[in-house]
């Protein structure tokens, strides 16, 4: 095998001339690879405790409805069924995962209570001796619904008269410090737009994106002789899961032990505490090991994807390519519940207006509730789709001005010492050098004055 090892570019990183590295520049075998190629790596589902029970979930068949009744009698009559669990069996049924860092309110039930707010929401968990019996029984749970109006579009959800998705918020947006959105105010965008040579406004829209890990979300919970629960999980966040599960079970964290760290792909999709609480309750109720794992359909249908985002960007642009003002209206579809979205939208706001120095910035970033599958973490959530929009905007401006897209970026790139829209001073910037290097590598010719630009000064910009 030939490896192309990246050397340190000393043209730019003059301070890094000392090369006494033991890892950088050498080939280091992954510590887990031997287990992977021999099939010995233990994933959570490779556990096979004796007398293990299986959980399957009866899920909401409505987008938004009041639950009139849940009849588990037919489910419990299936041979091999041990228990059916509803919200009444969960000690603290209402939660939100980011309460650990003080984000609230609790807005999501572990098992639906009174209302379902999205198609596929967990309603009733069936615990059975075999997977087949659990499937059979879960299909026989009978739920009667009274349909409620549903809303699926972020802007419709914020319009007056829209049905309220989540009563715990009282309106279809997450509240940031008393405001209906995360706001960014810097300079005077209205004035910049009024005095600009050009104003460009475009709209960007993404769909939800499923992480689709090779291994589906799941756990096996094994009651221990000392009364603790040992949770074998593929969570991406062992202690986050442990603490949230402890709160939901109303039990001291020390009563739980998580065995994890081996994750068959996560990409952000395995941080939502999706299966552990129900599996723990089932294990406590039966005193037996319990497995609760999503099938592929559940993974695609109800595990939380990257949020769909809609982004309007309106820019004030001068003939010489300077962007003097940027106004952004940003809507992220959180789905029916908060999960990690309030944090994602804060990240979005923090990322605006992109790696450019723009003297006037105005942004309203909305975390919107709709009757869609709750969205949550996925690889750079809050930032990736925004970057798609911001960089598409840069390309479109360049095209509209008949300008070179890299030169446009170099003119506007942030430099060390610039004050960003959040009033933080930029330091350690390297965008100028990265663009110059990229241009050189792909043979994109830049004029001499653009090649001489530097992140250390605004000279020539």
């Amino acid at each position, binding site marked *: 095998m030939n490896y192309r090892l990246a050397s340190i570019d000393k043209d730019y990183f003059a301070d890094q001339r000392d090369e006494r590295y033991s890892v950088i520049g050498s080939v280091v075998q992954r510590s887990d690879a031997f287990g992977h190629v021999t099939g010995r790596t233990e994933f959570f589902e490779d556990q096979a405790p004796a007398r293990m029970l299986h959980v*399957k979930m009866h899920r909401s068949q409505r987008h938004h409805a009041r639950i009139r009744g849940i009849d588990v009698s037919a489910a419990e009559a299936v041979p091999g069924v041990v228990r059916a669990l509803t919200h009444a069996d969960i000690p603290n049924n209402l939660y939100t995962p980011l309460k650990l860092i003080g984000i609230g309110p609790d807005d999501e039930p572990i098992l639906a209570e009174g209302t379902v707010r999205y198609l596929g929401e967990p309603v009733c968990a069936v615990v059975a001796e075999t*997977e*087949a019996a659990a*499937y*059979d029984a879960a299909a026989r749970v009978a739920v009667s619904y009274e349909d409620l109006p549903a809303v699926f579009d972020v802007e419709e959800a914020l319009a007056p008269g829209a049905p309220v998705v989540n009563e715990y918020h009282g309106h279809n947006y997450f509240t940031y410090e008393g405001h209906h959105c995360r706001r960014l105010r810097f300079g005077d965008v209205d004035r910049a737009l009024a005095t600009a040579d050009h104003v460009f406004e475009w709209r960007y829209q993404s769909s939800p994106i499923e992480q689709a890990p090779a291994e589906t979300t799941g756990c096996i919970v094994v009651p221990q002789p000392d009364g603790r629960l040992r949770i074998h999980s593929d969570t991406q966040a062992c202690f986050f899961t442990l603490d949230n599960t402890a709160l939901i079970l109303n039990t001291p964290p020390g009563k739980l032990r998580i065995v994890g760290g081996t994750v068959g792909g996560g990409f952000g999709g395995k941080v939502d505490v999706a299966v552990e609480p129900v599996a723990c309750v089932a294990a406590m109720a039966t005193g037996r090991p319990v497995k609760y794992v999503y099938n592929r*359909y559940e993974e695609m249908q109800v595990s939380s994807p990257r949020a769909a985002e809609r982004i309007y960007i309106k820019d004030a642009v001068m003939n010489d390519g300077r962007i003097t003002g940027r106004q952004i209206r940003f809507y992220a579809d959180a789905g029916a519940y908060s999960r990690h979205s309030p944090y994602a939208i804060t990240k979005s706001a923090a990322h605006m207006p992109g790696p450019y120095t723009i003297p006037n910035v105005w942004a309203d970033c909305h975390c919107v509730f709709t009757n869609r599958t709750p969205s949550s973490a996925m690889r750079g959530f809050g930032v990736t789709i925004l970057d798609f929009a911001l960089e598409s905007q840069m390309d479109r401006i360049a095209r509209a001005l008949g300008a070179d897209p890299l030169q446009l970026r170099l003119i506007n790139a942030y430099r060390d010492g610039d004050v960003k829209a959040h009033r933080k001073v930029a330091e350690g910037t390297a965008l100028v050098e990265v663009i110059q290097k990229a241009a050189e590598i792909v043979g994109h010719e830049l004029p001499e004055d653009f090649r001489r630009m530097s992140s250390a000064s605004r000279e020539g910009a």
Partner: protein
Amino acid sequence: MVVEAVHVPDSLAEATAQAARGGHVMAGGTAVMPLVNYGIVPGPELVSLRRTGLAGIEVGDGTARIGATTTFSEVADSPGLSVFRPAVATIASPVIRNMATVGGNLLTDPPGDFATCLLALDATCEVAGAGGSRDVPVAEVIDSGLRPGELLTAVVVRLPAGANWFYRKVTRRRMNSGAIMTIAATVETAGGLVTTARIALGGLAPRPVRAASAERALAGRPLVPDVVMEAGEAARADVTPADDPFASAWYRNRVLPVHLRRALLG
């Protein structure tokens, strides 16, 4: 419902009897087992055809008889069926082709790419039931399925000459992908003019369909781009495409003539 029995009969007679008693028949298992694994059990008793001896390929006299449980890997490996190799290579992946069968591809809902080939070739299906066996045109099997208790035992197909055989599957991914559309056709010409054309289209209706309008548009005319595009436009009358994750109905309608042209003229 849970599975209460999986029968693996050793003979066709036994399999037919078990099917007649209501057993749900499976061949390769690639369509039935996904349901079973998710608790969506098609019937309490499954009847596997794996040991019924229905697999096998006989080629002779320009005709092939392909046993119903012949896998696609066996079709691909058969020297006598080399004309089908490009088509078979578009069906799922090698691991699936080691399991999935010609009969299953025809009787699954919707019927698959090989069924589209068989339709273009006017294949004949050999069907066995409690009352004996009968031959049924493949078009009828695609449209109406079999009668309760009947089993497909083989398909008999006149092998096309390579020069007269056209196959094109349009996909989002290069390999292992569902069809945006599948086109299978036999076209014969004499003196530069089309004498017979049989065109089957998959992925453009609930089941593979014959593009009779396109066939008529080609009859007696030269096989040139303008004529084929015209035939492709006529074929829109023969299809009822739907939206699915691979493509929209609008897109399928829009690109049908282009892909027919590429199928027949490269």
